């Protein structure tokens, strides 16, 4: 098809607007980083920014797979035609908004942008607020049994009306926080970011005109849609694949939970059915999953090597229906608690990749472990409170093109330096190393977790910890093996040695006790027998794989000092080993279908 020169010019204009929109969003992020108050937003950078079209579809946004249907719930109370220029809406209510936001600390801000009297776009951001009330400081507790214990809930409300802030609403909200000044600082920062984004989009409107802006909003989405559709066409045959993955427990009981996914593809229509997922949990691992979450996971994964693909609603459009059923882990009924929903979100991800692996001859990532957090609370000699909250890194799943990431937490979040932790908290860290052999063996090795030895220096402290993937370690794919579980041991190697539950709170530790926190690894990809011998030797030399596992799992025999490969013995051993009988591995090779039968619950 021949296009006209005018179309061509418009294509360039679209690119200019696209660039400007993306830059506007990054300017919003820069403003939030610069003006927010709490370490959660400013340093841990737990926030999100986006520009949406009038239908509420994401056009440009932060690359996190945690965006919901951000606008519809606002429109229920405030129809489009009632919106005014300068309005700003906010909410943090996951149930009322059907998962537009997935736990209470994430507060959403939205502003409509007008062209004359018509809404032409929305600008949006959310940030994880430090404390919004609830049963504990920081609002999230593994022991919560109801969302009402997790802080104050705000349904969609117009907090700024045509430029005038509703001070009453503001006062009511900040009164509920243990740290009202910090909360107010963060709220101001996030609202200012919305206003900056709005101004930048209005600049685009002035420079390029309404038609071009609307065209750019649409093309930016349709380019992404086209990219994902072509990947689906090329990579996924017609068919149906199912997979189930498991969460160790919900913290308040010992019961494990599962996420179940059925991926169906028929002539370009790709749908996912989560309805057979486990019923909702008593503890806070429930995850109100918006349809965009699994869609963005698939979209980002399938397009990761492509040039110029922007994460947006193109992913949503390219994929068909996502089904969940009420009362399950992914569509819980209020007031099920939600604070630890990341445990379930990571399993949604791995269940999807389990389906993909079956659909694509194994060409999907193995499972990743979910990040770890621990809390140490104690009293200083001067009577002051000592609270240490540290995020710890884990191993991610191996890819079909690269090893899994070793020792990472999550996108854009940094851990505390050891020297900082020792200066600030009543503890000493005696070891911080890679958890050897924890990455699942494979052609590509799963990422390794870490080992952190924490010596308690205060008289008495209470330990809370959240580690998943211990009963059900991250599975391996396409012949790759599962990662190793993590765990917590108090005073290892002494007569006082004891293990505690990896997802628990309230363990009392005393001065001089050593807490060893071991985080789990990611699953491996492809047969370990196919891993180049040199890579195995490198891993041994660098402490990621032991000499023993090099032989047992990879079939690579090393000299006693671990410095050289015994080529003859290695060839013999590798030739004698059987190939993996099944696609997946967790402790042993297994079949995805068998794993879904009732006796395996």
């Amino acid at each position, binding site marked *: 098809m021949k296009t006209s020169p005018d179309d061509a010019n418009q294509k360039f204009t679209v690119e200019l607007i696209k660039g400007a929109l993306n830059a506007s969003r990054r300017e919003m992020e820069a403003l939030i980083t610069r003006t927010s108050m709490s370490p959660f937003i400013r*340093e841990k950078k737990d926030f999100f920014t986006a520009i949406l079209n009038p239908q509420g579809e994401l056009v440009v946004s932060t690359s996190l797979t945690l965006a919901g249907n951000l606008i519809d719930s606002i429109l229920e109370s405030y129809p489009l035609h009632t919106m005014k220029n300068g309005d700003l809406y906010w909410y943090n209510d996951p149930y009322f908004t059907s998962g537009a936001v997935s736990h209470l600390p994430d507060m959403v801000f939205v502003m409509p942008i007008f062209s004359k009297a018509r809404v032409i776009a929305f600008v949006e951001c959310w940030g994880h607020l430090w404390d919004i009330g609830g049963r504990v400081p920081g609002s999230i507790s593994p022991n919560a049994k109801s969302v009402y214990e997790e802080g104050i809930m705000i349904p969609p409300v117009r907090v700024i009306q045509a430029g005038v802030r509703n001070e009453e609403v503001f006062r009511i909200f900040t009164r509920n926080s243990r740290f009202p000044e910090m909360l107010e600082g963060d709220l101001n920062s996030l609202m200012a970011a919305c206003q900056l984004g709005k101004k930048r989009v209005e600049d685009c409107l002035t420079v390029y005109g309404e038609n071009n802006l609307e065209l750019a909003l649409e093309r930016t989405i349709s380019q992404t849609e086209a990219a994902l559709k072509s990947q689906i066409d090329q990579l996924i045959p017609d068919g149906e694949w199912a997979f189930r993955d498991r969460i160790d427990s919900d913290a308040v009981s010992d019961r494990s939970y599962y996420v179940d996914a059925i991926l169906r593809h028929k002539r370009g229509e790709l749908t996912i059915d989560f309805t057979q997922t486990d019923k909702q949990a008593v503890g806070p691992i429930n995850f109100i999953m918006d349809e965009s979450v699994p869609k963005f996971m698939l979209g980002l994964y399938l397009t990761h090597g492509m040039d110029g693909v922007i994460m947006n609603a193109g992913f949503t459009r390219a994929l068909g229906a996502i089904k969940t059923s009420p009362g399950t882990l992914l569509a819980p009924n209020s007031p099920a608690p939600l604070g630890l929903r990341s445990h379930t979100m990571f399993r949604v991800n791995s269940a999807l990749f389990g389906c993909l692996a079956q659909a694509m001859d194994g060409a999907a990532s193995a499972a990743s472990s979910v990040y770890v957090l621990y809390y140490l609370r104690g009293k200083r000699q001067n009577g002051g409170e000592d609270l240490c909250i540290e995020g710890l890194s884990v191993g991610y799943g191996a890819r079909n093109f690269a090893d899994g990431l070793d020792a*990472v*937490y999550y996108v854009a979040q*940094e851990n505390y330096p050891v020297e900082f932790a020792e200066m600030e908290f009543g503890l000493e860290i005696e070891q*911080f190393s890679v958890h050897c052999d924890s990455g699942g063996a494979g052609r590509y090795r799963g990422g390794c977790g870490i080992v952190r030895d924490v010596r308690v220096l205060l008289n008495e402290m209470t330990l809370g910890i959240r580690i998943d993937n211990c009963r059900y370690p991250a599975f391996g794919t396409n012949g790759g093996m599962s990662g190793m579980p993590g765990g917590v041991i108090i005073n290892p190697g002494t007569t006082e040695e004891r293990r505690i539950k990896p997802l628990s709170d309230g363990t009392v530790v005393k001065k001089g006790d050593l807490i060893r926190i071991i985080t789990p690894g990611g699953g491996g990809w492809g047969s370990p027998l196919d891993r180049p011998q040199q890579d195995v030797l490198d891993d041994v030399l660098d402490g990621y794989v032991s000499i023993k596992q090099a032989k047992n799992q990879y079939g690579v025999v090393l000299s006693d000092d671990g410095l050289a490969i015994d080529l003859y013995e290695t060839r013999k051993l590798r030739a004698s080993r059987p190939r993996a009988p099944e696609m997946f591995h967790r402790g042993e090779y297994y079949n995805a279908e068998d794993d879904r039968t009732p006796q395996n619950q």
Partner: protein
Amino acid sequence: MANSRNQFAIAVDIGGTFTDVVIADRDKNFFFVTKTNSTPLNPADGFFNAVDSALKLCNASPEDVNIVFHGSTVATNAILESKGAKTALLTTKGFRHVLDIGRAEIPREANLYGWVKPKRPVQPRDVFEVDERVRSDGSVARLINKNHLEKIVKKIADGKYEAVAISLLHSYLNADHEKQIYNLLAERFTNLEISISSDVLPVFREYERSMATVMNAMVQPLVGKYIRQLEDGLAEKRIKAPLFIMKSNGGVFSPQEAARSGAHMALSGPAAGTNGAANLGHLCKIEDIITIDIGGTSADISLIRGGKAEIANGTKINDLPLSLAVTDIHTIGAGGGSIARISDNGAIMVGPKSAGADPGPVAYGKGGVYPTVTDANLVLGRLPEKLLDGALRLDSKAASFAIKKYIADPLGTTVEAAAIGILAIVNETMNNALKLMTVERGLDPKNYTLIAFGGAGPVHGGQLMRLLRTEKLLIPRYPGILCATGLLSTDLRYDFAITRVQRAGQYNKKEISETFNSLSDIAKAKLKRDKIDPAQCHLKRGADVRYAGQGTELSISFSDGAITSVSIERAVAEFHRTHKKLYNFSDETTPVEFVNFRITAIGAMNHIPQPKLPQSAGVDISATDYRQVVFDMNGPQRTPVWRREDLLNGHQIIGPAIIDQLDTTSIIYAGQRAKVDEWGNILISEVMT
């Protein structure tokens, strides 16, 4: 010409493709500039070729040279390409994976499914754990286990290491253990370069400190050898003038210091460019400047506020932290060599892929296939068909063919329209980066002057000032060699920092005083070694301060004189003010902690000014030539062309106009007016706004 002695300053800036040379005489008001080829395989050859050609240019003899400045990419390339020496890291027991684990982050702009962790410069197999421990208060928990250390010494001997980095926990508080090991290794090995973290960066955060120490150690053998070659070569040429090397922090240091602290040369080249821009600002009395240096593969952006280049306490190289004082430069993948293409899903992209210098743009005829920004500028007539006085001929037909094939035909449009589109996109990319840099600091670009330099800066500057809405654009007399001319206006500069945490309510005046004094002593000793007149030495105090509980610090200045409750209070107040300015809030009720103390030591040197241009007879000067230039969709326009060397102080040119010079072309767009100032700079402003 050379009839009196000791008058020349030579500045040599070595880049990837070209080496820029300036030879200047302060008294006689002249200034020769030239370009020679770089010799990446043996950079010292390129340096001496440059010196030779500088001397030849003004028929000077070696004795006439009284100072030599040098910007070098030797350390930069070693770090970027991981081509440093074989290096071992000695760390505290339990921390063998300190580099590998890092801060456990996945970058914010990364796709987490596709991202791969960057390889560290030293692998864990080359990391050795020393059985020792210092606590977070500086006390020793465990002395060094000497027997165990002997085993490590043996491994270093067996491992054929060329360099060793020593970085132990809390060594910024107590460096005894690092020093003991240093002494032992220095005694046992004669050919080993050793860097210790308490020397390189005595500041808390073990990952960042270890990385800086490792980077320093691994470039050391290379830099040391290079510096010796320079010194020997200069001696051989009977050039007795002192040599100064450009640092990342915008200052220079002596070859002796460079040979110890090579990691400080990581941004040697770009820092000189910012310095050159700051110096122009000083000459023209412009204090607030945004600089953009547009080269072949990338554009470097930096800020000058109140006449001073912004200095940061660290940067990232290939996603790895280098936490040493550096000129705050933001680099984006947009330049003359940026490739334009249409992706599978129909997006038109320009950069960050680049044809670089080799093969370069299609027009260079060196094998480039895909159209670049330079090709687009050429087919629109914005660049001449001959560069470097005809030494480089550009093939406009080939450029046009590439744009037609890869961009215009697939879009169903003309080559001209496609070329205009390519330039619009790359300009927008640069504009977005410029805006982001100012927003991050809460500044309004409108109040700043844009200085555009580098080979492609003057081509794009006029458009960028429009997009950014700055009032003025300054194009230097020699835009292609601002890094070299910047070398002539540097001072010696050392930045020192050390961690000494002071909690609120427990500020220790004695400790703060001793900390500043000991840093000052180190600084003075260095300047003395560099033979700087004490009267020319200036020390500035600073501190990194935070609210209790915060994980990052803010650098503020700290007053001179005795440390008293009043001076500490003043610093605290300064922190609140700075915090408010930068983050829009401050909180006087939250306890304030001092974390690091800093000394910046400046040894002021005589700056060699650029010569002035003679005054013109009037404002008008007639064009020497005309060429067909496309500015917009209205097609080619007969546009007057001037030669830069014909322009004198006071001349004015109204756009549209083209000004060609040896290595670049300045474009004045319609609606803009250019004025030439006494230093030969072109100042551009909008006529009608």
